[in-house]
């Protein structure tokens, strides 16, 4: 499945923790997600966002744990997900938060 070309925006993200075991075979999509999160545009969108990678060798499932600035938490288990699905789930939440922020600013302005 082709990965969408839309860039990952980390504006509302406080921290991203990616944990995987590289010797497993179901890790490809998690690694692709990690590459996208660490891309140039993503890092430029939020310099204060902390991206940590936990490389283990215990046969555990690959997990992506995203902590948003407003306290929300998104946990994605990447064993049976495609990279496109993970990115679209993450982007949809970011867009929803963008809309909320815009509404708040409009209310404040009004």
């Amino acid at each position, binding site marked *: 499945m082709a990965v969408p070309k839309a860039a990952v925006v980390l504006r509302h993200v406080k921290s991203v923790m990616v944990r995987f075991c*590289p*010797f*497993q*075979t179901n*890790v*490809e999509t998690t*690694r*692709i997600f*990690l*590459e996208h999160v*660490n*891309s*140039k545009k993503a*890092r430029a969108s939020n310099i204060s966002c902390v991206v940590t*990678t936990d*490389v*283990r*060798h215990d046969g555990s499932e690959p997990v992506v744990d995203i902590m948003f600035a407003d306290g929300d938490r998104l946990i994605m288990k990447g064993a049976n997900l495609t990279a496109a699905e993970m990115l679209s789930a993450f982007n949809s939440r970011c867009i929803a938060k963008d809309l909320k922020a815009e509404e708040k600013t409009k209310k404040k302005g009004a």
Partner: protein
Amino acid sequence: MAAAALCCRGLCRTGWLPTLQIVRHAKSVTRHWKAMHFERQKLMAVTEYIAPKPEKCIAPRSKAVTEENGYAKLLRWQVTETFRDSKMIAVCQHNFTPSEEMLLMKHRLRKHNIHVKFFPNEIVRPYLSVSKYKNLLPLFVGCSLMLVSPEIKVKEMLRILKNVPQINLLGACIDNTILSNQGVINYSKLPAMAITQGQVVGTLSLMASQTCGLLQHSSAHLAALLDQYIKQQSGGAGETDGKAGEGQAELGPAKSSAGL
């Protein structure tokens, strides 16, 4: 319909007159399905496509042999050489790194004779599946880079990689042993070979050195006890030396005369 009737009457009575032309006719393009003209049906039937049957084909079409790309051959040769000449091969996940940081990291690693290699997965995976490094296959997925060196300098490599958070160590093959991330860290904490050999030799020789002491221990202990006894005896008899000394002296010559 009326026009068609006129036409028919004309045909029956006067023959086919070229000047008699049908002014009104049915439309050729209709919204409903309309049967083709009979002549057209005959033409379509005659010119229908008949596909050639496979048995009638003389020979199957042979696929043109695609020659291998020269660049792919070169990369494969480089991969083979890299895996053959390196004692330490570390595989890392390569996320985006600014070019200055990358250059600095390459420079620091080059000081310790560690080379940074990028190979496409399409070249590396077929080579690995055939070679003895089969178990490294799962690591070569996505964007990865290799740190190779003919020497084993794990501590220096880990120290340099700590400064570059975008490069994540996934695993390594050091001295024909595949290690995970934690395994590489444990390997770096091991003492040097000379120190380890000295420790082994010391442990083995400790047993041998103790044997001599154990054998002599019992006789030495007995000698010490006898010494102690003699001292005690001589110390207790020292008080009566003055009295018993003369008696002993008298006894001594008497004994000696008796002996004679």
